[in-house]
């Protein structure tokens, strides 16, 4: 009985499903996220002629303005995918709706690998190597990381992630909260760099997750060169186009918010889990276009936030607060009502 039951279950549920799913077919009871069906999708590799091979690239811009291209293997040492790492595979497979979230979190994680405030921008790019080009058809060796100018027509920038400030501690994994303020820019094709900023391939830094990575430019210079002091947030460059700032988890204080006068068009600020108090909140009154503030995990009370919005509305909007729709307040519509009270 055991033998027959075993034989029938494995034959019908596992092996038969492997044939159908492996050929790209579907079964009425199958579901891509079903555990057994996931295990049964086995074959179907290298089924069609390749027209090109993709190489995912990451460009890191440091505080000193230098822009470096780094192989993703710099940040992931398990080689699991030909000459690709786990991170390469994430970017390849997250193509579609998952791509923005994965790239945003990965950019934050990469920035967190360096000393605080060292990285100001992370860009993901992709170069398409067409089949038959000499680098592929008559190669001198195994596939390896290879640079190509970003103005090459076969290279595109998938996404750009700017970091205004970062002082939170590294917290990777599945939580997705790195404490790195980030602003995503829409993807741009064929981004060019001037010769001074042309990408190069720095020596691969040793990956030791207990220590932050070093700016490749710095790490290649003499060890005796003193490190410059990390810039204070109040020294931030004017940025009239910046709309969103994420300070969640960062160790910024009330005084740091004074520097926000440099970003007058800011529309959204996330102060969650920071040290900002109700007193510091008043410094945001200089931001006339502000629409959203998040305060979870701070000492700021809802009443203080409501009072802030009321004052903000009185400053920048004509009429009374009750006649003017208030911006979203910490994702809590009830606070709008609280703010309307005289």
């Amino acid at each position, binding site marked *: 009985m055991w033998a027959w039951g075993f*034989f029938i279950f494995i034959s019908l549920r596992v092996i038969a499903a492997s044939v159908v799913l492996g050929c*790209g077919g579907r079964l009425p009871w199958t579901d891509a996220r079903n555990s057994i069906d996931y295990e*049964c999708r086995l074959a179907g590799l290298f089924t069609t*002629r390749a027209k090109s091979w993709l190489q995912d690239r990451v460009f890191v811009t440091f505080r000193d303005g230098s822009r470096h291209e780094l192989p993703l293997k710099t940040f992931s040492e398990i080689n699991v995918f030909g000459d690709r790492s786990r991170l390469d595979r994430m970017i390849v497979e997250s193509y579609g709706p998952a791509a923005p979230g994965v790239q945003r979190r990965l950019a934050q994680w990469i920035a967190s690998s360096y000393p605080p405030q060292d990285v100001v921008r992370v860009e993901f790019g992709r170069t398409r190597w067409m089949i038959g080009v000499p680098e592929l*058809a008559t190669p001198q060796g195994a596939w390896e990381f290879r640079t190509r100018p970003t103005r090459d027509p076969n290279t595109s920038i998938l996404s750009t992630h700017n970091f205004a400030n970062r002082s939170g501690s590294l917290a990777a994994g599945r939580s997705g909260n790195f404490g790195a303020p980030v602003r995503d820019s829409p993807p741009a094709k064929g981004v060019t760099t001037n010769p001074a900023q042309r990408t190069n391939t720095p020596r691969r830094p040793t990956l030791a997750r207990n220590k932050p990575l070093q700016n490749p430019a710095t790490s290649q210079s003499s060890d005796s060169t003193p490190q410059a002091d990390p810039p204070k947030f109040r020294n931030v460059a004017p940025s009239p186009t910046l709309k969103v700032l994420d300070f969640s988890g960062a160790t910024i204080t009330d005084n740091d918010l004074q520097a926000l006068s440099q970003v007058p068009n800011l529309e959204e600020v996330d102060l969650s889990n920071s040290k900002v108090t109700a007193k510091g909140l008043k410094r945001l009154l200089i931001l006339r276009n502000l629409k959203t503030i998040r305060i979870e995990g701070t000492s700021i009370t809802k009443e203080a936030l409501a009072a802030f919005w009321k004052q903000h509305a009185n400053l920048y909007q004509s009429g009374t607060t009750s006649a003017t729709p208030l911006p979203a307040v910490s994702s809590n519509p009830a606070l709008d009502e609280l703010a309307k009270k005289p």
Partner: protein
Amino acid sequence: MTDFDPVSTPAGPHPGSASGKNAAPVSSGPETALRRLARKSEWFLIGPVDCAKVDAFAWLFTASFLLWMLHHFSHPLEWLTEKGFHLNSEDLRLMNYPAAFPLLNEWMVPFFGVLLFGSIALFLAGLRNRLLLIGLFLLALYVQRVDYMASFTLNKIYVIVYFMLAAAPPRSSLSANSATTQSAALLRLLQGFLLVLYFTAGLSKLLPGDWTNHSDVLWTHVQGVYRTDFAAWTLRTMPPVFWTVMQYLALGFELFAPFFFCIRKIRIPVILSGLMFHIVIALLMRELVYFSLQMIAFYLLFVPQSWINRVSFLYRERSPKEIWGKIRRLAR
């Protein structure tokens, strides 16, 4: 039917000779051709067979699992803990993956390593109890699902095969020739699994794929991210016709091997062709050596029993006492 699998030697008497304990029951009435066929089929599919072939396969299969895990465990913190970047549940949902298993804390990693490699070592040393097989199945499942980005088709095969080994009918030592026997169901399913893998791989290159529409499909795949130094040398030196021939040989092997494996007279050449096929894959494509080794392990299910018996010192079942004695001898 006899040509399908003559390699497995039935451990008990054949149905019809009612003298053995493992013999299929013989009906008292006149035997029709249909009934005889049913009885032979039952004998073929689930009758008792010597465990040696499955044991030899499981040993090499587990050795390949050991190498694959050693490869991953070179960077355990990136792989298993929050030190590495991992996809969250929303990412996985959008990418159509089942939910991931939780990551480990850093302090758990050494214990997990001991559990993983200890279980593999005990199996390779000869312990064959069901509890250990269930443990290997759960470990294979965990290492697959803790990080989908570090797992591939071969991880799925480890999960499926360890499940089959763990859920297989119990063994017995009651056969006439005193060999350890087990229902043939496990052997047949493992053999069938390999043939299905090959056939499906070939079929998917034909039906959704375009391997017969172009003569340079293999050439285009060798150029990419899997390219090894050997592949680069081959690309530089071999004429296009070489790649076309290789392409159709590979496709032909995947499509027809399942049928060739069933014919006893040509089985050895087919096995040698398969070995060549996997060695060439391992040479041309980086990191696929683990997959090749895993596939080659399946070939032990098809080789003659006498070949298997010659290396029985490697895979034979040992009692815990025997294993402990061996460890103590090694420690001295």
